[in-house]
C-alpha cells in the first residue's frame, strides 16, 4: 500500500523519492475512500431515521486522518479501532456489503448480529473487534505489538482513539507499557474536539494531547488531521521508527466531528453553529478536492462522477444487505466458548424446545 514506485513527473509537485510522502498515484484513491465514507455517513444517518438501522456513529470530518493512516500502514499491520474507524476498515479492504451487513445485524454480519452498528470486526483486514468501552483497545494494541516483537515480525499495531479516551485507564497503562517495552505501536489519537458534549479544553489541561507522550518517554506529534498527506507522513515516519526498533509514537490528528456523536445525540444542545461552520470550512474532503482540482488530477465532472459512483455503490450495498435474512435465533448461543459448556447446551436446548415461548432462560 505504501508503495514508493516512481510516478510521472508533474509540474505542480516537484519529483520526490521522499518515502514519507503520500505517493501521488495514491491521492485520487485516497479521495475516493474519503468520498465513499462520507457517502456512507450521509446514507446511514438517513437509514437510522427511517428505522432501517438501529444506530449510527458518523465519522464525517475525520476522513483524512483515517484514510491517511490506513494508506501509510501495511496489510499485515494490526488495527485496534474504536467505533468510529469505518474509513480505516474500508481502505484496508473490508467490503461495503460486509459493512452494511454489520450495520443491519443480518445473518451475513461477520459479528453475527451481536454488536451494535459500527462495532466492526474484520479478521481478514487485521481490524480487531471494536467495543464500546472507551480506551480498552489501547492496551490490547500494545500487547499485540509485544507479541509481534517476540515473534520478530516487522509489523506495527495502531491504536485508534479519541480525545476523550486520553482520560481512560487504558491510555495511561498502554502508553506506559509501550514506553517501557519500546513496542512498535502507533497511538493515533483523533482529537475531534469533543467527547460527546465535553469539549477538549475540559477533558484535560495539557496544551496538546500529543505532549502526553513525554510522560512515557517517547515522541508525540501533532498533525493537521484534515490534511491526508500530513497524516500519511506522520504515520509513515512513526511506522518506520517502530519497525526499526525505535519504539512507539503518539500522533494527535487534529480534526473535528462534523456530525453528531451518534444518532442518539443532539449536538445543538452543547455547541454553537459558528463553531461548526468554522470547521465546515476545514472539511478534509473540500481540502483534498481543492488540491486535486488545482493539480488537474480531477476536474469538476470527474469529481461529480466520483460522488455519484460512491452513492451508487452505497445504494447497491444497502439493497443487497437488506435482502439478507435476519440472524438465526440460535446464533445467540454460539461463540461464548470454543465448545459450548453443558450448561449452555442445556440453555440452548430449552430455548429450542417448541413447547415453550422464546425469551430468557427458563
Amino acid at each position: 500500500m505504501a508503495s514508493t514506485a516512481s510516478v510521472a513527473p508533474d509540474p505542480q509537485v516537484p519529483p520526490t523519492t521522499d518515502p514519507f510522502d503520500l505517493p501521488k498515484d495514491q491521492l485520487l484513491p485516497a479521495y475516493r475512500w474519503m468520498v465513499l465514507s462520507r457517502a456512507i455517513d450521509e446514507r446511514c444517518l438517513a437509514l437510522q431515521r427511517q428505522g432501517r438501522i438501529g444506530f449510527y456513529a458518523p465519522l464525517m470530518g475525520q476522513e483524512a486522518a483515517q484514510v491517511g493512516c490506513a494508506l501509510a500502514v501495511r496489510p499485515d499491520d494490526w488495527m485496534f479501532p474504536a467505533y468510529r474507524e469505518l474509513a480505516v476498515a474500508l481502505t484496508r479492504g473490508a467490503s461495503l456489503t460486509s459493512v452494511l451487513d454489520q450495520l443491519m445485524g443480518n445473518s451475513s454480519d461477520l459479528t453475527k448480529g451481536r454488536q451494535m452498528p459500527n462495532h466492526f470486526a474484520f479478521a481478514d483486514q487485521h481490524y480487531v473487534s471494536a467495543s464500546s468501552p472507551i480506551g480498552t483497545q489501547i492496551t490490547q494494541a500494545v500487547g499485540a505489538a509485544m507479541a509481534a516483537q517476540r515473534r520478530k515480525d516487522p509489523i506495527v499495531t495502531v491504536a485508534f482513539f479519541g480525545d476523550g479516551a486520553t482520560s481512560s485507564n487504558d491510555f495511561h497503562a498502554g502508553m506506559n507499557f509501550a514506553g517501557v517495552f519500546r513496542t512498535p505501536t502507533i497511538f493515533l489519537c483523533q482529537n475531534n474536539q469533543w467527547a460527546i458534549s465535553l469539549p477538549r479544553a475540559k477533558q484535560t489541561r495539557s496544551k496538546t494531547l500529543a505532549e502526553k507522550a513525554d510522560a512515557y518517554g517517547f515522541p508525540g506529534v501533532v498533525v493537521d488531521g484534515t490534511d491526508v498527506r500530513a497524516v500519511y507522513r506522520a504515520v509513515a515516519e512513526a511506522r518506520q521508527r517502530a519497525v526499526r526498533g525505535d519504539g512507539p509514537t503518539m500522533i494527535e490528528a487534529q480534526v473535528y466531528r462534523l456530525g453528531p456523536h451518534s444518532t442518539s445525540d443532539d449536538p445543538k444542545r452543547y455547541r454553537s453553529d459558528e463553531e461548526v461552520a468554522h470547521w465546515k470550512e476545514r472539511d478534509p474532503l473540500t481540502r483534498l478536492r481543492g488540491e486535486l482540482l488545482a493539480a488537474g488530477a480531477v476536474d469538476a465532472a470527474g469529481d461529480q462522477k466520483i460522488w455519484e459512483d460512491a452513492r451508487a455503490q452505497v445504494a447497491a450495498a444497502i439493497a443487497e444487505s437488506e435482502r439478507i435474512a435476519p440472524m438465526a435465533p440460535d446464533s445467540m448461543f454460539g461463540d461464548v466458548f470454543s465448545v459450548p459448556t453443558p450448561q449452555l447446551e442445556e440453555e440452548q436446548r430449552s430455548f429450542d424446545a417448541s413447547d415453550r415461548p422464546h425469551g430468557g432462560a427458563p
Partner: protein
Amino acid sequence: MTELTLVQAVNRGLAEAMRSDPDVLILGEDIGVNGGVFRATEGLFKEFGESRVIDTPLSETGIVGTAIGMALYGLKPIAEIQFLDFIYPAFDQIVSELAKMRYRSGGQFPCHVVIRAPYGGGIKGGLYHSQSTEAYFCHTAGLKVAIPSTPADAKGLLLTAVHDEDPVIFLEPKRIYRAVTGEVPDGDHRVPFGSARVVREGSDVSLFAYGAMVPPTVEAADLLVKEGIRAEVIDPRTLVPLDEAAILASVEKTGRAVVVHEAARCCGFGGELAAILAEKAFYSLKAPIGRVTGYDTPFPYALEHLYLPNAETIAHAARSAVQAS
C-alpha cells in the same frame, strides 16, 4: 402528586435533594449542559451551576474516586455512570474502597456516595448498553443496592439513598425510563430500604421481579389469571438490604416460587433468592424453584428480544411451578 415518567421522577428526586441540602452535588459525564444522555439531569446545570453539576473528564475511576473523596470530606455526592456497562473502570474504587471504607477505618471514615446508573436491556443497545450486573454489587459487602420499577419508587428510593449514610448503588431500568408513567408524590417523598412492594396479591405462586422485569411479570400474572392461576408478584425494590420477611411470607402462602431477572443466570440474584427459599422456606415448598433469567451468554444485539424474559416465558415457568408434583 404529579404524573411523571420514571426518568422524570429521577430528575425530580435529584432536584429535590439538591434544593434541600447544599452538600448534595452530582458529577458524571455529559450531565451538565447536555442534561445527561437520557436527560435525567436536564435543567439541573441551569439551576445549580457548575460547582454542583460537574461534567467530568471521561474517567469512571476519576468520577467514583473523587466522589469518595468528597464524601470523606463531608459532602453528599451523587455520581452518574452513563451506562452500568461502563462502571468497570471504577470497580476497584467501588469494591475495594467505597464498600470497605467505614469498616476498615473502624467507623472513623463513613463514606456515603450514591452511584446512579441506567442498566438493563430492551433498548437495542447490544453488548455494552444492556447489561444487568447487580449481582456483582450484591456480592460486595458494604454496598446497598436499590432498583426502582415505578416512577414513585424511583424518586422515593433515590431520596432515601441520598439521605442514607451508606454507599448505595442505584440502578435505573432504562428500558422503562419513559415507557412507564405514574403518580409521584411531590416534595421529600421517601421509600424505605428493605421493604418489598407487593405488586399483586395471589395465592398460587410467587413471582419475584425487579426493575424492568416487573411489567412483563405483571403481564404474566394477567395471562395466568385467565387460566385460573392467581400469581403473587413481589418487587423487592432493594436487593441489599432484602425484605426476607415479605419474600418468605409469600412463599409460605403459595408454596411455589419463580424468580425473574434479566441478568445472566449463573450466580445471579435469582440464585441467592432460591438459596434463601431452599433454606428457610423449605418445608413450604411444593415445587422446584423456577428461574427465568437472561442466558449465560453476553448480551446480544439483533436477538435481544429472545434473550430477555417476557410475559410468555414468565407465565410458562409459573405454570410449570403450579403444575409440579
